[in-house]
């Protein structure tokens, strides 16, 4: 066992890889060169189009023990990963590692293939039942959870080598030029797949909208693609993007959003050139809504919005409140429409978005990010991976990346969820270190990290309900009662990798 600087015990090795204990957010230095892959030559007259997935898998030379990937822009509407694993299973190939950008509840269909040994491990976080089953010890399948920037780093450094990438290509031509803006499975940005296109040994574009050469605009180019397969459907369009994303109407959520907007105003960052990121949750969007009003009222012109992009951000772009949107993933139809038509709406890859080991990621230019949590603790550490029942249920996304990069990272969270007090002595799992979290906003009060005494004073001067985090915690527990601590077995089912590749925590099997 090894101990992180935050006091968590982690294994010496996990799934055959040495675990380097987390030390701090910024000092770990990378060594060596970027990963490479073999050169290739395609002569005139070459045909990339394969009759079906099976033929493409055989052509790619996929063998026992290799690693595959998909991207998660089709979210819970994705049919490709399940389709690929079925084809691999039918070929009798075993011990495959899945290194997708994320796995969603729809991929619970993979459980039998974990039991059968087709799937050996996940080099990515998982959302939903797979993590729950692993937490209960009902499947044995090591899981390495990574941030979006951390995944970019791991592919670029060669720590994760993808043998065959299956890229869902919503609009694609027979030579492999693709984008995400057209076709029945249009998902907008293909930002997470660009890494796979750059580093996977073999790249297979899979499309349900094969168009005559050339497809433009080009998100991923023909020079990166080895094979093209047309399938009937890549997924369920209803679940790929939301038709609309809306602000919350919940009074608690609105109260939290109101406080968060006040904190941003008090920080002094809300001025010309302001940059901002938020997720697609109802409370986050309510914060964006209030900021928009404040920006319009004060005539403030921001610089950029980033991350997963929603219609709210598109409106702000079109109203001139931001010059640019940096889009790694579209969350709704309005964002998909905009990325194909607004010149200021820029598709970016996960490397440019959040990788800590390059010439500088966009997250480093962020003023403010609004983030969620399943739990926070009195040291401001945040858990987004496990729920209070101890089950691994959520992937990290860009949480730790944006928290580390932004000048002001704000957690918006209700103080109680279904009787569970959200502020704990110690979070069940550390996803994001407290050192990178500045403010926690709940409906019962605002806690400010001690590193920001100026901000704390300014909030008090504005008569906002600032409380010491321990005081806030006690107030909450007085209402909920003290929960019984969870009990865990010794075996580690997942490690939580920090964006720099060190291990910040691990997830143990929950005692039955």
């Amino acid at each position, binding site marked *: 066992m090894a101990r992180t600087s935050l006091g968590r015990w982690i294994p010496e090795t996990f799934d055959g890889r040495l675990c380097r204990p987390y030390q701090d957010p910024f000092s770990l230095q990378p060594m060596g060169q970027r990963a490479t892959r073999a050169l290739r030559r395609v002569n005139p007259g070459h045909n990339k189009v394969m009759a079906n997935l099976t033929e493409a898998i055989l052509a790619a030379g996929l063998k026992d023990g290799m690693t595959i990937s998909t991207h998660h822009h089709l979210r819970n509407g994705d049919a490709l990963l399940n389709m690929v694993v079925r084809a691999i299973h039918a070929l009798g190939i075993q011990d495959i590692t899945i290194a997708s950008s994320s796995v969603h509840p729809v991929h619970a269909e993979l459980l039998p293939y974990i039991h059968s040994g087709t799937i050996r491990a996940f080099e990515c976080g998982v959302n939903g039942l797979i993590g729950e089953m692993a937490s209960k010890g009902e499947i044995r399948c090591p899981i390495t959870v990574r941030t979006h920037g951390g995944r970019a780093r791991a592919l670029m450094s060669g720590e994760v080598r993808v043998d065959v990438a299956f890229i869902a290509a919503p609009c694609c031509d027979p030579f492999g030029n693709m984008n995400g803006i057209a076709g029945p499975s249009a998902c907008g940005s293909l930002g997470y797949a660009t890494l796979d296109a750059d580093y996977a040994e073999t790249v297979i574009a899979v499309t349900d909208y094969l168009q005559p050469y050339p497809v433009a605009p080009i998100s991923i180019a023909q020079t990166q693609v080895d094979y093209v397969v047309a399938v009937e459907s890549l997924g369920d369009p209803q679940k790929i993007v939301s038709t609309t994303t809306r602000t919350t109407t919940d009074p608690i959520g609105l109260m939290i959003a109101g406080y968060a907007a006040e904190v941003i105003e008090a920080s002094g960052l809300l001025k010309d050139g302001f940059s901002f990121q938020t997720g697609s949750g109802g409370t986050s969007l309510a914060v964006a809504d209030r900021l928009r009003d404040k920006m319009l009222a004060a005539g403030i012109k921001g610089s950029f919005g980033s991350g997963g992009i929603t219609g709210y951000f598109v409106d702000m772009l079109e109203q001139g409140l931001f010059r640019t949107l940096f889009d790694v993933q579209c969350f709704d139809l309005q964002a998909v429409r905009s990325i194909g038509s607004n010149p200021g709406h820029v598709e970016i890859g996960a490397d440019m978005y959040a990788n800590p080991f390059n010439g500088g990621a966009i997250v480093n230019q962020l003023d403010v990010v609004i983030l969620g949590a399943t739990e926070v603790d009195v040291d401001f550490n945040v858990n987004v991976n496990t729920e*209070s*029942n101890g089950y691994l249920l959520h992937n990290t996304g860009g949480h730790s990346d944006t928290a580390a990069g932004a000048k002001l990272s704000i957690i918006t969270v209700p103080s*109680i*969820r*279904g*009787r*569970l007090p959200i502020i704990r002595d110690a979070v069940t799992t550390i996803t994001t270190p407290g050192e990178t979290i500045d403010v926690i906003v709940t409906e019962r009060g605002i806690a400010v990290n001690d590193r920001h005494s100026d901000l704390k004073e300014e909030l008090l001067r504005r008569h906002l309900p600032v409380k010491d985090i321990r005081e806030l915690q006690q107030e909450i527990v007085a*209402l*909920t*009662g003290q*929960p*019984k601590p*969870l009990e865990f077995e010794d075996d580690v089912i997942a490690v939580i990798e920090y964006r720099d590749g060190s291990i910040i925590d691990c997830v143990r099997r929950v005692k039955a």
Partner: protein
Amino acid sequence: MEIRRKAQAGTMQSSDMMVFVEPAQELTIEIESTVVKQFGHLIRQRIEGKLQQLDVRSGRIRVSDRGALDYAIDARVETAIARAAEE
């Protein structure tokens, strides 16, 4: 109070509880909860306290809890019992 007939109170929404009561020889309490691991003991304690206060000595009490706080538990139990005590 006496449980004379079947009755229920509450909702299945988050932070609420459904309480089902019916006549029985003995007093039994069955708890199903999203937070049974963390709060099962406190939920039972609270229900027992409320039943004692209402002087309920027999009946089958079943709750389906979605993380109700103590005051919500009190209100739902009391309402279910009041409904079950009606002629």
